[in-house]
């Protein structure tokens, strides 16, 4: 399984955010997207997740266990917001996403209880999500990645609100995912504690040459 992006460029409104970004990742590999604020890391991830149309270029998942039309169907996206309802319990939230996502071919998700256990928060799944602290909420959002199998994880600043222990826990989750042959793409300022990852440095608009515009 390989994820191939070729000549991606994207714009928001009138502004060209990035241009001609290409990379290739194989199963079991991680890509860390680095760059200053405003260099287009989040935009790149949203393009990959299919939430923004690409101006030019393509991103494809090749030779996956099941042919995919859109990369987004084979991917988990962990954005800045947790996508969990405050009024529902953690268990209700996770079970809903498990049922709604369904498993992608080539793996199975774990139950809500086990997922909460994996992020170190077993035993409080019966509480309303709103009762949890910001860090706990973030970790439960990560548990969402485990309840349904997706080969590709797209992670936007995954560890922004977390302490060192939780960061290490998350690095463990990603490592386990890679060991299963998965792919992870993360935009981050912090070191994720992963071994041997590819790096993509986003340079913002300076990256692209103005001549191609003219």
């Amino acid at each position, binding site marked *: 399984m390989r994820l191939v992006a070729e000549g991606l460029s994207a714009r928001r409104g009138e502004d060209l955010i990035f241009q001609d970004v290409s990379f290739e990742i194989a199963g079991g590999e991680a890509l860390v997207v680095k760059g200053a604020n405003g260099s287009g890391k989040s935009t790149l991830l949203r393009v990959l*997740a299919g939430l923004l149309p690409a101006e030019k270029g393509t991103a494809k998942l090749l030779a996956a266990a099941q042919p995919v039309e859109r990369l987004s*169907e084979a991917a988990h996206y962990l954005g800045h917001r947790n996508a969990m*309802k405050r009024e529902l319990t953690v268990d209700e939230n996770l079970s809903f996403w498990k049922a709604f996502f369904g498993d992608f071919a080539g793996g199975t998700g774990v139950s809500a209880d086990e997922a909460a256990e994996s992020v170190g928060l077993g035993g409080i799944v019966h509480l309303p999500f709103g009762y949890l602290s910001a860090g706990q909420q973030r970790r439960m959002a990560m548990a969402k990645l485990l309840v349904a199998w997706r080969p590709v994880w797209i992670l936007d600043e995954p560890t922004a609100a977390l302490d060192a222990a939780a960061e290490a826990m998350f690095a463990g989750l990603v490592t386990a995912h890679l060991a299963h042959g998965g792919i992870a793409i993360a935009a981050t300022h912090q070191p994720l504690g992963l071994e041997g990852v590819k790096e993509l440095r986003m340079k913002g608009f300076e990256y692209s040459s103005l001549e191609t515009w003219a």
Partner: protein
Amino acid sequence: MIAMLLRDLKLSVRAGGGALIGVLFFMTVVAVIPFGVGPDLNLLARIGPAILWIGALLASLLGLDRLFQAEREDGSLDLILMQETPLVLTVFVKCVAHWIATGLPLVIASPLLGLFMNMDEVAIGATTLTLLAGTPAITFIGAAGAGIAVALPRGGLLVSILVLPLAIPVLIFGVSAVYAAIQEPAPFLPPFLILVALNLFFAVIGPVAAAAALRLSSD
């Protein structure tokens, strides 16, 4: 999809959910009318069906703006957009859940309010039946407005403004079916069947339009 339905129903009855508010608004609007037009029972009986219909129309618009906005605010909308499940189907299920939580209580409350309006049994029965057939149409067409207004900061008011004109056909045929049932010569069935047809029609174009708007508004 069942999971989506159940989740939305749960959310609507939990703290801060809108299930109760819609009915309360309906009752309040209808209760206010006699203060305005005076307590003449014959007059109230005559305008009762129309009042109930307008009250139900306004009440079902009330919670519509939250239909997608709540999903967008906590990031759930992104994940819903990414899935293999057709977005149209998800929107349809969300509409059904929204109708069960807010529209159905209106239908159930309408006979009671019919008594307040001094309507006779036939009029009450006809109003309840037409509301049962017509309020889903309002929800479906309202979903299109909610999808369009999802990214706007003050979407709530705008949804009502956008949707009210679109819901006018539903109102026309709903009320005319009720009056056809009360007044002898006019037949009840033709306007009622048109109302049902409108319902089915909006059940298709509402979710399709809402899904298209949601895809475009993603940023």
